[in-house]
């Protein structure tokens, strides 16, 4: 079954000048994402799979699908590790 990344509720973010500022309420750390990171982060809405986000990334930036997929995977791993994103097993919300 496909997995859909979605932002957790323990954080808040604002996009300022195309770059996201994220605050994790659990540990009080905050993160600054560059424009590519912000693009991926904004698509973590529980409706896009990793492959779909990578495909969008290819449309938006000058990057191959393979590289985009790898970057998405690495970035997502970090977001999940920090508790900022979690996986859904389907777009219906089941985890």
């Amino acid at each position, binding site marked *: 079954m496909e997995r859909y990344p979605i932002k957790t509720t323990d954080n808040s973010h604002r996009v300022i000048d195309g770059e996201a500022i994220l605050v994790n309420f659990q540990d009080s*750390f905050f993160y600054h994402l560059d424009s590519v990171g912000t693009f991926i982060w904004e698509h973590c809405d529980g409706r896009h799979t990793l492959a779909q986000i990578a495909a969008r990334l290819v449309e938006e930036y000058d990057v191959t699908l393979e590289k985009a997929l790898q970057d998405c995977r690495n970035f997502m791993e970090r977001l999940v590790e920090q508790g900022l994103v979690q996986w859904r097993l389907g777009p219906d919300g089941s985890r």
Partner: protein
Amino acid sequence: MVNLEAAQLAENDWLQSLAHFTLQEAQPQSEIAQEDAKKWKAVRRQIAARNLLLLEELHRVLEEFDTAGIRVIVLKGAALAENIYPSLELRFFGDIDLLIRREVLPEVLKILTDLGYASEYLPLRPGGEDFQAHTAYVKHGVLPIVIEPHWALGPPYPFTDRRYVEGLWQGARKTKIAGVDTLVLGPEDFLLHLCLHLFKHRQETWLTAACDIAVLVRHYQATLDWQAFMYRVKELKTCLPVRFSLQKTFELFQPPIPAFVMQQLGEHKPGFYEKLVFVLINQQEDRNTRGAVSLELFLTVPGIARKIGYLWAMLVPSREFMANHYGISNPNLITAYYFLRLKETLWLTVKGLFKLIFKPALVR
């Protein structure tokens, strides 16, 4: 990744980063704009992150109030950062100020207590916070979060008159703050509030309030009803502090204040008491000296009965306040401290009068 708890931000960092941002917008190629650009951008990101944390807390509080059917007007910092400044990173705020109706205060305090907040303020006498028309509740977490429920604007000039307070609610505007539907003051009341705030902090953080006034005036340039603003200022006998604040702001930022406003404020002939209050407050060299805030409040608290009430509370506070204020562990000594307090208060009054008489240049 930065830890907010460790990132110590001060109001001064905000002002410098705001100045740098403004310069970058106006002259992006200039040498000063290029200098330390990374550093100031990082500071602005920290401000945004800190504000997000406070707004998350505000979100929680506003939702609880909404569930309880309590209406709230979000004042100052949070309202300015979310609604008036062009971006969240451009306005640092340290606490959350909310206007509520006096009659819902017990309910508001219960909600705050249930959310983990506690009062760190001991009034002179039970109910003594009514003189200041606000109280403060604090929650110690990642950052200490202070929520101040107000039921009138000020001090100084805590206008608790029912008709005026009702006007604030009637003029309030619907908005969304921290993702919740809520209210902010109408532009004219907002401006008056900021002017009184600048006057209150004229010796310390007045630059912050001056920035706020300049940004607010520009934000509401097309809709601010200056005639209505002047009507309120005159009706509330606040021409002198408002003139002081607008002049200071104008000297620095030249916001689009209509000429007739400054002219009317300049030509205003204050009454004896209005002038006396302004002079007595303004002559204080340091607002942090003992008795300064009390004198300010005594002079501006409206009505003779409330002034007498405040004086009584000042001279004869509750035994609990005395024990706490003077660190008295033996209850038998409290009575003696009442005499000490009386002597202190009289001495401060005599000193204040002496300064007033021998500084005639200030009375003009």
